[in-house]
């Protein structure tokens, strides 16, 4: 996956645009965005969770899955092409699978709650919300680890540093570094 990555990103963006269009044109549901609380001014309620997801639930989940894929694709794009090794790709795919697993757990436990009205609690929150709260937060941790632990392997290697220092020295010699003039740098 070298130069094709941008086409993958373009395809994901196109798919997200189409999904957003389908959601905007889907059959509307009253109070899909919530309604005023019957007792407490300033509070809003969600109401019927099943009805709100009836026409757009699957589209919303697909949108979120694509967004998680887009985040990983963007992060991969942020790695220099020469460092996008099979190992990096494996790490990125693992990071995506981890995020998608959290999404799946969150969605399935929420749908289970809607069907049964029963939920367990984890660290202060109903389990579906705990997946959203702690899980989504943790979903980005693999990217933190790839960046931090793989910094000298994928992000900014010793060779990269040497190359940049050489470039700075050459620019200084050419008198480019101070004039900040793109025309002269061509």
């Amino acid at each position, binding site marked *: 996956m070298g130069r094709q990555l*941008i086409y993958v990103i373009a395809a994901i963006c196109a798919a997200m645009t189409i999904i957003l269009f389908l959601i905007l044109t889907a059959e509307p549901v009253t109070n899909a965005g919530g309604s005023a609380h019957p007792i407490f001014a300033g509070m809003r309620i*969600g109401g019927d*969770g099943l009805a709100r997801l009836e026409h757009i639930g699957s589209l919303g989940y697909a949108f979120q899955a694509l967004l998680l894929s887009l985040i990983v694709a963007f992060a991969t794009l*942020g790695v220099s092409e020469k460092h996008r090794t099979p190992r990096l790709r494996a790490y990125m795919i693992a990071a995506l699978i981890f995020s998608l697993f959290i999404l799946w757990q969150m969605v399935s436990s929420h749908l289970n709650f809607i069907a049964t009205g029963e939920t367990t609690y984890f660290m*202060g929150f109903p389990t579906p919300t705990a997946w959203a709260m702690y899980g989504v937060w943790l979903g980005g941790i693999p990217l933190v680890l790839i*960046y931090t632990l793989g910094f000298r392997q994928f*992000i900014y290697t010793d060779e990269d540093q040497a190359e940049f220092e050489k470039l700075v020295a050459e620019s200084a010699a050419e008198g480019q570094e101070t004039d*900040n003039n*793109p025309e002269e740098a061509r």
Partner: protein
Amino acid sequence: MEAYRQEIILGAVALYMVFCVVTGLWAMRRTSDASDFFVAGRGLGPIVISLALFSSTLSGFGFVGGPGLVYSIGVSSFWMITISTAGYALGFFMVSKRIRMIAELRNCISLPDVLAARYGSEAVRLLVAITIVLGVMGYLATQILAMAVVMQAILSGTAMFADIGLVACVAISSTVLIFYCVTGGIIASVYTDVVQGGIMMVAGVLILLTAMSVFDGGMTEATSIILKDDSEAIMPWGSAGIMASLGWFFVFGLGLAGQPHLVTKMMMNRNISDNRHIFPLSVMGYVLAALLWVSIGIIMRATVIDGVIPPLGLPDDAASVFLSVFTSPLLAGIVFAGLFAAIMSTSDAFLNIGTAAIIHDIPKAIWGKNIENELMWARIVTVILAIVAALFALYSYYADATLVALLGAFGWATFAASLFPVVALGLNWKGATVPGAVAAIVSALIINFGVQLAGIALPYGVSGGLLSFVVSLFLFLSVSLITKPPVLDRDIDRVMDI
């Protein structure tokens, strides 16, 4: 101690403001040219940068608006903060290395400088600078107003300042802000950010511990009370529903890498290799500070539903009522100082990038050269910009809020939609073209302005910010793919290979 609650809070805030003034004076001695004023001479260490980065991310909105949103719409607003780990990841993977490289190679002092170098286009520089100035005005006005309203609430609780007016509070808070920004520039700004970030982290943890002790059953009892009242409010999508939540997830996640006040700080570190430490430190700081957002909102909604306290007049009162009812005066003092810290750390960052756009980028884009004595003009324009924003804030409060609301649309979402593709993709894809960048910026501005002006409410809680971001990304990619690939400057081309 309880009898002196207002005095203790006032003392904590006053102490904090004195610190800001002293820092400004200290930093003035380290500011000798425009590069020092705008990018701290690219000489800052990893701890300073990471604290400055996260404290600028979490503005006064996080301390006041955040808990208010949880009180109002439940879990929906969590999506703005749970995405932060991935959001910072994109900022570091896509922006931090190359923006720092180009800044050093071309001696850039602003984001438009870097983008003009990357695209070889003064049109891109001008468009980005104008977007920044519009956004800065809206952001600054709302932040100054928030600062003044909170200060009035604190001062009016004391016998000495019981009748103090909002204008006086705007004057006091703006004067402190202007003083340290003008004297010390970005150096004062980032070093105050360090203390501001520290206060915010401490406040976040202490508030969480306090919140967990409000109910005997801790947070579980609080969330179960909300669940019994309206299960959707405490379920993953909250009261606002799936698309409103995902809209925030999208805009706040991807959008972080397009915020000019944040990515500009990525130009200021001493060594590129420091990024491996800055990234996790920033994430950790943000997570700790954001605990306040989550815990106050949940507890306030639960206590009102349970009848422990009466309903709030406004959702944004959640934090101040929580502090007055459930915390000790000392903790309330720390959190109020943290609130001022959050507001000021964001305001000074905006003041800095707005000034750079006005005195450096717009003249350069139009006349092709820098103005004489940039440092002097930077100080003058910083004062003018802050005064205009303060007047603007007062006008919106007393006369007509429409204009600020309109410019408020130029907030996070517009920066995200218009600048993320141009910055984050542009720095990593050689095929990104000037027409693509122009299409992305213009479409984002038109959609955000259009939705705001026309007062359009999209179905299923889809926001104008989400729509404009998706369209902007799509246009940036498609227009770049169908237009002729650019010939990059030699040094930029080599940077993009590293």
